[in-house]
């Protein structure tokens, strides 16, 4: 059985190709760049990233760079570079700051 990401020839996905283009937000550029830098510095590989993306439970509900962000987070925790707790805490602090809290 093929994974959720394996789309080739999958009939239930057939439909008109939506050609609209969304403008990248800053955080998406950062998600892209953080991934590249982590690869370039040998902290992870493209294949590890793919495995992490393909294993995301909410794959179909997530946007493209949401998958990248989630997979990068999963990998840095898995590799012991960061802990889930410190990421959760920092993300909450950033959200609070942005909302003017």
């Amino acid at each position, binding site marked *: 059985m093929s994974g959720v990401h394996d789309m*080739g*020839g999958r009939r239930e996905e*057939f*439909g008109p*190709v939506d050609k609209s283009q969304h403008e990248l937000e800053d955080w998406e550029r*950062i998600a892209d760049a953080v991934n590249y830098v982590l690869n370039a510095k040998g902290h992870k590989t493209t294949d590890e990233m793919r495995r992490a993306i393909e294993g995301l439970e909410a794959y179909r509900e997530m946007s493209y760079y949401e998958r990248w962000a989630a997979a990068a*987070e999963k990998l*840095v925790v898995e590799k012991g570079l*960061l802990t889930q707790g410190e990421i959760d805490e920092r993300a909450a602090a950033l959200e609070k700051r942005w909302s003017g809290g």
Partner: protein
Amino acid sequence: MGENGHGHPHEEPKQERSPWAARIRAVEELLAEKGLLTHGEVEAQVRYMEARSYENGARLVARAWTDPGFKALLLEDTKAACSELGIDASGSVEFVTVENTPEVHNLIVCTLCSCYPRAILGRPPDWYKSPAYRSRAVAEPRAVMREFGLEIPADLPVAVHDSSADVRYLVLPMRPRGTQGMSEEELAELVTRDCLIGTAVPREPARV
């Protein structure tokens, strides 16, 4: 950016902001604090990607149309051909050029994700990453191309190339008729991003 005067464009909340916006920034900050990467490296990579464009591919095509020796090099060793035009190909994995001829039309897809020669051509268009394109391009490529306004004659075979994490593709389209005497720069302008994926072909210039 900076419209509220705080001067920290990266920290301005946006209505459409995803919960992942805070999470990836948290990850970046923490990695930087631990010395695993620097903000400077991330910023440099953002700028590098912004500077990558399909125009690099259009230049490769225009040179190949005008210089048979260069075309041979492009088909033999695409990264070496990039270097010859001063296009940085150091960031790309294996990079292969496939040639459209009167005998075959080529179409590029990545059924598994979004593999694309990003390091040369920049980010792929959103539709390239869509489930509809990824599922259909290998099953009914002619119908997909028709949606892009490209009708491939029934007797012209179509070759679909499925990209991977290790190999990325570029289509070398055929030079349109009516382009004799055009400069390399003028020729490059006929080559759109979609021509390099295979969902379009360069159009004959309008007659004046």
